[in-house]
């Protein structure tokens, strides 16, 4: 498996819906194509909501996995 270079990790733990998604959207909007943003979220809805948003907007979901008590979701900006 090739290594994933995370451009920036956004720690949105402690923030309620839709806070984590908003933090990610802000980062992607300001970022460059090819950047990978890793979102940390304690809001369990994020695990369903963020991939849905990524799919809808045509970006790439790198992974969405549960860590100890929170979620790690990585997204590559594709456009």
């Amino acid at each position, binding site marked *: 498996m090739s290594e994933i270079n995370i451009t920036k990790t956004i720690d949105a733990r*402690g*923030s*309620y*819906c*839709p*806070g984590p*998604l*908003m933090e990610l*959207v*802000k980062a992607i*909007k300001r970022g460059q194509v090819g950047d990978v943003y890793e979102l940390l979220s304690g809001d369990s809805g994020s695990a369903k909501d963020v991939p849905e*948003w990524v799919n*809808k*907007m045509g970006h790439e979901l790198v992974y969405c996995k549960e860590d100890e008590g929170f979620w790690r979701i990585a997204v590559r900006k594709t456009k």
Partner: protein
Amino acid sequence: MDQPKLSVILLSGELEKLQAGCLVGSVASMSGMEVNIFVTMEALRAFRKDVINARDFKTAGEVGREMLNKKVDLFYQLLENGKEMGNLRVFGCAMAMDLMGWQKEDLIDLFDDVIGVTAFLGKAAGSQVIVM
């Protein structure tokens, strides 16, 4: 292809309804929809600068009260984010403003315009509509 459109009509001054309507609107805007929000009746009062400064919101029950106790971005902050990250506009109801003698300066700096219902219907044409 036309951008899909959503209209949100905020009537209630209850925090839970304001929060739900603004949450749907802001996320829709971040997801590429054109969003128009019409704020009227008691909902308009919640957008007054003095009301927001005092956090003087009506709550329907425990969810709203907990929202005020915890660090949650409230309805007007959700709309600010929706505007920043997408195509979202907010309109105040001219009738309610006239009736109450309120000026645009009494409201927080979030409103694109104060308009009547005919003008809003024009903006809402062909959209999904949510009423809160």
